[in-house]
């Protein structure tokens, strides 16, 4: 579309008259904007306390009346012994999830696509969704039942078979936490996350597969040369969104599976913010840590989006 076409397609009339013409649609948009403003932008005023000495008893007005302390809380966080651990854990867990839990649903969708029996396909798909609807509280209960060192099912079996001398301490050994976290994440979310890829695969023109088959492509080659390029756009968008949440971590998981024994490996920025903010009532310090996390998240989304546009041509905006 050239510039001339663009101009010719622009609606005619003043802003007010155009708004009146589109009133019903604009009202719906306004509702969305209002929702966004009230629940996403207005609360951002609270960021101000990350630069203040805030007292809980001063309530909302305390946001504005508290004493300014500059970067005091940021400096405290960066010099605290927990800083390195929580940042490392957040990044490592997110990267591991990106490396393992992100491709898992793609792989699962590809595998599911190769199943011809529709009944079996539906059964597998339904069964794989189910763990998504189980809360992390239940998952942690299941983990206790399975992996507890005191009468956990796995330990009971391994000890009975003589494969181990003493019980495995999966739930309390920090070094095993990352494996536990990734394993449970993959088990819980792979089926659900695969939906979007299954839908993308369904949208690929079947003629492409037929053409590839005529050209002699086997199953694997059809996956590599037809299916994967066909869902490339979806993969890229999901990847950018996943990168945006890279420093967010999984709070529910960290709270339910983390404990004082594995804390060196389980504490992530989100759970640290919660611990400090709500348990120690240090809302100012917690706001500073949370803000730092948000800034990194935004930077990651922007940079990945730009990188993606340059390299693959696909981008969110």
């Amino acid at each position, binding site marked *: 579309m050239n510039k001339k076409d663009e101009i010719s397609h622009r609606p005619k009339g003043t802003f007010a008259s155009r708004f009146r013409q589109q009133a019903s649609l604009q009202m719906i948009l306004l509702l969305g904007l209002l929702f966004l403003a009230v629940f996403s932008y207005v609360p951002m005023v609270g960021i101000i306390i990350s630069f203040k000495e805030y007292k809980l008893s001063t309530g909302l007005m305390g946001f504005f009346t508290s004493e300014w302390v500059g970067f005091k809380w940021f400096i405290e966080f960066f010099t605290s012994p927990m800083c390195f651990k929580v940042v490392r854990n957040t990044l490592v867990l997110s990267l591991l999830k990106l490396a393992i839990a992100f491709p898992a649903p793609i792989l699962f969708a590809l595998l599911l696509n190769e199943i011809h029996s529709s009944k079996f396909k539906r059964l597998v798909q339904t069964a794989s969704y189910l763990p998504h609807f189980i809360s992390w509280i239940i998952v942690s209960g299941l983990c206790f039942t399975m992996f507890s060192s*005191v009468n956990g099912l796995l330990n009971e079996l391994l000890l009975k078979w003589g494969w181990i001398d003493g019980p495995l301490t999966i739930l309390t050994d920090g070094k095993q936490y990352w494996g536990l976290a990734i394993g449970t994440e993959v088990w819980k979310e792979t089926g659900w996350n695969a939906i979007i890829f299954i839908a993308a695969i369904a949208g690929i023109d079947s003629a492409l597969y037929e053409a590839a088959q005529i050209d002699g492509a086997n199953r694997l080659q059809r996956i590599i040369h037809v299916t994967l390029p066909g869902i490339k756009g979806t993969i890229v968008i999901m990847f950018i969104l996943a990168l945006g949440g890279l420093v967010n971590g999984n709070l529910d998981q960290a709270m339910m599976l983390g404990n*004082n024994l594995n804390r060196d490996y389980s504490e992530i920025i989100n759970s640290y913010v919660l611990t400090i903010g709500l348990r120690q009532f240090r809302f100012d310090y917690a706001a500073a840590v949370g803000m730092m996390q948000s800034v990194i998240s935004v930077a990651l989304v922007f940079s990945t989006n730009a990188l993606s546009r340059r390299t693959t041509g696909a981008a969110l905006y």
Partner: protein
Amino acid sequence: MKRIICLLLTAAMLLGCLAACGGDAGSSEPSKQESSQQEPSSKDEESSEASEPEDESTGAKDPVEFSLFVDMTWFWFDKWGTEPVSQKITETTGVSFDVTRASDDQQLALLIAADDLPDIVYTDSNARTALLSDPNVCWSYNELIEETGVDIHATESEIANNTRPDGNYYALLNAYTSQEAIDEGNTLLSGGIPSVAYRTDIYEEIGSPKLDTLEDLEKALLAAKEKHPGIVPLLNGDGGYLHYFSQQLGLKGNRDGVGYDKDGSPCYWLGMEKVDEYYKLLNRFAREGLLSPEAMTYNHDKFCEVRNAGNSFMQVRATDEAQSSNNAAIQAGTDYRWKLLTNELSDDALVGVNTGIGWAGTFITKKNKDPQRAIEFMSWARSEEGRKLCSWGIQGEHWDYNENGETVTTAEYQEALSSGKQKQDDFGIAVWIFGDQGDENAFIDHAVTDPDMQDYYARLQNAVKHTAVMSELYFCIPTEGDMLNIYNSLGDMVKSEEQKVIFAETEEEFKEALDNLYAQAESMGMSKLNEWMVQQLEARK
């Protein structure tokens, strides 16, 4: 038409959205009527005096219901009037409560921040006591007493203990025990003190060894482990009950709190004398397989589940837990019972290291619909009549005076306890103890015949002999500012770092972990905090 419907729908949605965001303006912004109710003016006093057909001896008045937030997730009840004691309180005072039990430790802080407090708050948390001790949040007792002229039945030392830096006292913590009461033997320690209980069947199986010292205990645990390698010899849970061992070693202070170092100066927990010894003992237990790391993560429910499934020999938890264990064992039809270890395991044991000025406080918030009735209720709760009803139950029903004028429990009450009924859960006794004072607890329950109950009281009385009141240390616990941040951060750090110390697999690892624990504490400002504590104590003198 379509457009009109669309606009109408959108407008309705917008209004709904705004209404939802608006919240209850009336509740956050007290109306004029509410403000006038809040002011316990002399006019109110006069009118209430004129209109109330009250009985001066009991304080019985027109019915009033206060909303009450109990800041204890474990609290026995979340309803008022379901047991005889609360019913009697209402009958006597006219006061009833709409009880809300905290769902977690953060709830109260959020209520404060949201300016959504109930009429009354009952909390045992030092941190939240500090938050509530604010003239914008709660009424100070001294202000209300001045306005209403009620007698709060408080000693000078109690008032001095509870007075905050702003010169007001916003609550008088209950269950305060003075050194005099301890010396006179007129008190029992709380059922919440850490204790060890053991399973009778395994105990007999290992030859019923004597359990007089820490070494005896260790040997018994090892013997049980040998006989039953699959169980956890010493089961503990979260909540710091392993502190039992620091008490048995005689540490002069509280776990995760303040105490005295070897030079007699106040200090944070890690600076106390014998802390190394405590960690060394626990590390030895852990290396001998007597402790389970996983048990350190158990909440109370999980702890009970593992214990009730027969997966442990001994348990270390609150004294009153032994009774619940027995009830569970009876219900499960097991052939064993749990028996409390009623004696201390060393002469140095310092069980009741009382560094507090009491236990829990009842705060009258600025949202209170009738502060005058609230302070009058507190006056009654702290009166002899109120204390006896709340702590002992109903006279003639649960307790009475014998021919010598001594207080004893009634036969019916004892029988009910022997049949498995619970003092708190079934009778509401010692639950609503807003005005309880530690001193009076020893008079009652001496005459119990149930062996488990006898053990229970023997344990609490023995512990009193190993008790020292160090209330002055209460003022060394920071309540705001940088020192509070250091104090909280240290507590948070110790919780996880000490696990590495306790569960270190070799002597070298143990030393390294312990050094690291101290180094981290130093880097977080422990010395600075200790210096501040010394200054606070000096200033208090």
